[in-house]
């Protein structure tokens, strides 16, 4: 699809999109229309309604409209609102850091290993810390895979070890060393109050303390783990919702070659 993604017959409507100043779209370009819902800790009243309106005005919302408000039963009031965002964003300036390798499929990865690495690649994974959500890491590692995409255990040339859930970082790393891992991959699903950050950071610190940071490909994943975040806290890559085994496999094997870890 082209940059503005619209087909010829409709271009007359919006030939004027200015990508340096984009705004929300309701039913007319640049109308700024947005929907909001939130609760204010004040009792259901006209004053509460006004407070919600003022709040949206402060956010730079024009013509805020309180479509619905109701008493939540503890002196707090819930609001559903619409209004027109006045801010704009320069879309032309946006650059998102990405895992930028061309994703190979299972056979591609297998061939790549045969040609470029010529020995089994060892990948050790787990759901570390107090996290017990194994479905994500299982989706990536187990034979069966996920959504019709086989997991790493089924890849020829990859030895995959899934160490399961609630794995303390120390134990996890010890096991990885024992198995002679080329890559360690960890999953973090519980992110409430940012519990995943200290846990992920701790693992990296342990790896550094062991002097292994250069020799290992270190990857994190989970529904709220962005590549950006992962890089920030010292990982080689981060993978989020919609990841399949081939994504992480491609990344690991190409990293190994690029970094001379073969």
């Amino acid at each position, binding site marked *: 699809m082209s940059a503005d993604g619209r*087909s010829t017959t409709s271009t007359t*409507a919006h030939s004027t999109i200015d990508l340096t100043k984009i705004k929300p779209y309701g*039913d*007319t370009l640049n109308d700024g229309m947005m929907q909001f819902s939130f609760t204010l800790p004040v009792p259901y009243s006209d004053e509460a309604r006004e407070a919600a309106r003022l709040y949206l005005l402060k956010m730079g919302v024009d013509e805020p409209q309180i*479509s*619905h408000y109701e008493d939540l039963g503890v002196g707090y009031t819930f609001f559903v609102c619409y209004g027109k965002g006045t801010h704009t964003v320069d879309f032309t300036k946006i650059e998102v850091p990405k895992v930028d390798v061309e994703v190979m499929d299972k056979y591609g990865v297998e061939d790549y290993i045969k040609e470029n690495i010529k020995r089994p690649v060892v990948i050790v994974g787990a759901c570390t810390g107090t996290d017990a959500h194994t479905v994500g890491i299982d989706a990536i590692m187990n034979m069966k895979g996920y959504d019709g995409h086989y997991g790493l255990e089924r890849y020829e040339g990859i030895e995959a070890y899934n160490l399961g859930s609630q794995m303390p970082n120390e134990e996890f790393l010890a096991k990885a060393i024992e198995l002679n891992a080329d890559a360690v991959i960890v999953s973090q699903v519980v992110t409430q109050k940012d519990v995943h950050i200290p846990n992920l950071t701790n693992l990296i610190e342990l790896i550094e303390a062991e002097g292994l940071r250069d020799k290992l490909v270190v990857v994190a994943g989970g529904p709220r783990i962005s590549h950006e975040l992962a890089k920030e806290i010292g990982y080689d890559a981060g993978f989020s919702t919609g990841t399949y085994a081939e994504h992480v496999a491609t990344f690991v094997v190409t990293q190994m070659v690029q970094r001379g870890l073969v």
Partner: protein
Amino acid sequence: MQKNKLNLDFGLVAEARQSAARIAADIQPFIDQHSSVTVERTVARLLGIDGIDELERPLPNIMIEAIKKEGGLPLGAAYWIGRAMLATGKTPQEIAEGVAAGEIELAKLPEKSVEDIQAAVNKVAVKTVERIRANRAHREDFIKNVGEGPKPYLYVIVATGNIYEDVLQAQAAARQGADVIAVIRTTAQSLLDYVPYGPTTEGFGGTYATQENFRIMRRALDEVGNEVGRYIRLCNYCSGLCMPEIAAMGALERLDVMLNDALYGILFRDINMQRTLVDQYFSRIINGFAGIIINTGEDNYLTTADAVEEAHTVLASQFINEQFALRAGLPEEQMGLGHAFEMNPNLKDGFLLELSQAQMARDIFPKAPLKYMPPTKFMNGNIFKGHVQDALFNMVSIMTNQGIQLPGMLTEAIHTPLLQDRALSIENARYIFNNMRSISDEIEFKEGGMIQSRAQAVLADAAAMLKDIEQEGIMSTIEKGKFAGVKRPMNGGKGLDGVVVKDALYFNPFIELMLGKEGE
């Protein structure tokens, strides 16, 4: 499939249908004896007259006003156009332009024999009819070769006021899964006694219905239909003071669905009842011939009246609309009879009553692609609850095999749909339709339970009401306010001065061409 799930008394159904048939038959002589300005403008359009003058007055209006001013309307537009063709050798369009320019005065042209006039007119008329027939065939081919969505068709509206913005929204909707796109008309159009011209970009709560707008949207939908592999139906409104004209425009531009109700204009737009009854007849002949599904407006009763108490008026009106449609040669397969999910959501067991009502319509009109309207009256600013109301509505639809579904909008009480509202609404319906696809075949209703009894009671009330109307006559019934609680006097409302008694020599070539040859 047709299992009489509700244990309805089909003897009573037949009685009610006969009452409705007699009600319609009773008024047919009146319809046959009259014509109207819009009927005649329609004839002019179908004979090829289009365009506007420098004051933006449509040529069909200029023509018919010219004829009317001379007192010539009882003979019909076809007569005058044909006579002018013979007299001048010009095409209808050239004649209209001449009239508009003040260069031709129809009444002053030499007289011709009626046979010659009819022959001349028929030659042009047959071409138009062929064009419409070709449109119909084109639609059928598209569906055969490219495909269409399963029923219930998903019908969504676009209402930006700007035809180009509408196109954007319509194509988005089609990609999201919509099967029918209805371009809502601007607020005041139904009361205009002419059809605006050309592409338009300014409307309130809707976009003007113009032939050019029809064309633009038709092209856009064919394009996206090819892309998504489904024929996308286009819907507009032929209600108001220009019913047959808009029907004709729709037939020419291959629209697929038209709002078209025998009584709606009278009750909800205060259009004179004589005018509407005459206009609806010709409009339906055209729709019938063009293979256009009509949508009737029974749902409107429930936006003002209570859906529990007044359920039988919906059914009674469906019977009447059915009979009026049959008289106009419109087959059952094109009758999108309307009904709506409009009970108070806080009603205990209200869902069962809705289910009963919807199943009843299904069983009584088994071949009709019923048009089912979403909750509107009891929607409020709580979009989350509203989205659930819409989900329940979608469920009733798939549980009872409706034909055309207007998925509700979570923002119904707030604004005309945003792009995202429509996407969420379609997603809601598609999820439910797929996840419950076969449910209507799997579920039965308890013998003598609440669902069955309710339908039986509503049917009985509707049959009694129709008996009543049969005694009273449809016009007098409306005068007394028995439909939707609205009283409309015989000679009140808009547009009466556009009604005319036909002369013995009156003729309209299209009635015969469309009705005789293609009517069921």
